[in-house]
């Protein structure tokens, strides 16, 4: 089984451990992920903040490369990239004139045949059905699944899970042997888009999220987005100083948890790269 992979910039840089764990889990389950050759950055928040056309053209280049390289399904582990690519796919599909300017206008060629999977969709479709008997080290901890904003919204376009109180990640964690807690901040925004430029907002937004998870006894926060991870992990000092207390629950990727449960070693999964030590 071979699937396309769009890692995106974060997975190549600050979120290296996400890539490592995605690849490790896929490999353990006999799935080969092939990176789109010569992919470019999707432009993320910056592009659509400043320039609408750019925000569609950059992802369009990626989609057209994938199509050219014969990929039917492309896995996009980063929620922000997933959102940009899916929105672009949708916009191009419903506005033929727009598609014309964006693709032809930029010397691209895209028929619209590529299907995009976020990490949970990929796991649900290709990995969890074959988990029977493979969970060797159940992750027996209370976890708070954090979906963030970009994985489930806007529902009209993404059509993934429910917008309010989504469940897909929780179900996945159950399968990995964890106990997902019911909490209130599953889809609240962590402020990642302002992470560098307005750290004060991040302290407040991410602080509320971590505090609720901690208050309800979560031993780890589980994410599926490098932006969420780096915000909640790397900026923990700033968050703690905003909250005026020390919260030390680690922030793990879904794939890291699944990897641990499958018995993959911690190093392969990149646990040593976290800012907040993973002591569970």
């Amino acid at each position, binding site marked *: 089984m071979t699937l396309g992979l769009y890692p995106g910039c974060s997975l*190549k840089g600050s979120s290296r451990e996400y890539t490592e764990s995605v690849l490790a889990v896929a490999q353990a389950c006999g799935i080969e992920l092939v990176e789109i050759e010569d992919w470019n*950055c999707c432009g993320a928040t910056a592009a*659509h*903040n400043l320039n609408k056309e750019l925000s569609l053209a950059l992802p369009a280049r990626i989609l057209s490369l994938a199509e050219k390289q014969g990929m039917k399904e492309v896995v996009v582990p980063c929620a922000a990239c997933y959102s940009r690519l899916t929105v672009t796919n949708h916009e191009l599909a419903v506005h033929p004139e727009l598609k014309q300017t964006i693709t032809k206008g930029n010397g691209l060629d895209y028929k619209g045949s590529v299907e995009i999977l976020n990490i949970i969709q990929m796991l649900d479709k290709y990995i969890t059905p074959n988990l029977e008997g493979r969970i060797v080290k159940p992750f027996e901890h209370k976890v708070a699944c954090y979906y963030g904003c970009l994985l489930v919204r*806007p529902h009209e376009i993404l059509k993934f899970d429910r917008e309010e109180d989504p469940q897909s990640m929780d179900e996945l964690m159950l399968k990995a042997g964890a106990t997902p807690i019911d909490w209130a901040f599953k*889809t609240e925004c962590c402020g990642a888009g*302002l992470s*560098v430029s307005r750290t004060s907002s991040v302290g407040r937004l991410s602080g509320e999220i971590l505090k609720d998870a901690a208050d309800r006894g979560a031993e780890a926060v589980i994410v599926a987005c490098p932006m969420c991870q780096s915000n909640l992990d790397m900026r923990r000092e700033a968050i703690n100083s905003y909250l005026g207390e020390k919260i030390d629950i680690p922030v793990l990727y879904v794939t890291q948890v699944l990897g641990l449960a499958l018995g993959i070693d911690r190093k392969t999964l990149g646990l040593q790269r*976290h800012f907040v030590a993973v002591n569970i």
Partner: protein
Amino acid sequence: MSAETIHSVIAGLAGEVMEHTGVEASHCYQCGKCSAGCPLSEEMEYPPSYVMRMLQTSDPVLEDKILRSFTIWVCLTCEMCYSRCPMSIDIPKMMDFLREKSLKEGKANHRAKHIIAFHKSFLDSIRITGRLYEIGLLVDYKSRTFKVMQDMSLAPKMFVRGKLNIFPEMIKGRAGVSSIFSKSNKKSK
């Protein structure tokens, strides 16, 4: 009435918003649910529903205030407002348009300069290399904002954890990417 005849009737900025995004300000009935749920509304001088109301007035003074507001830059397009709006008003899409317009008309709020600088540095990084080069981004951003100390404590820690690449990754199709940039920049001028 066809969409065409509708927006020719709507005056001013609201009409422009309608034309470019399909968002119809007149559909907002000021319930305030967007402002209630917006994670950033307390940092905005005009919460989202307030912006909608300002648009509805077609008052040039208020329209100018929107374009000069901090609000439009603080919005993270988290889509919370849109997902809960009873009238399905796509505020984030509208915010994208307002930001773009504000920037083009040189009305961007001075408090937003770090945010804009960050976005610009980010895009520059992609324009040149095709991918985001995080160290480059930070250096560039700092040179734009003179926020030299901010985040400097993070960099070494990231480096130790193998989270920073010292050299940028250059893609082969760089020329294609920068042509995308120059084309869309021209269009948006």
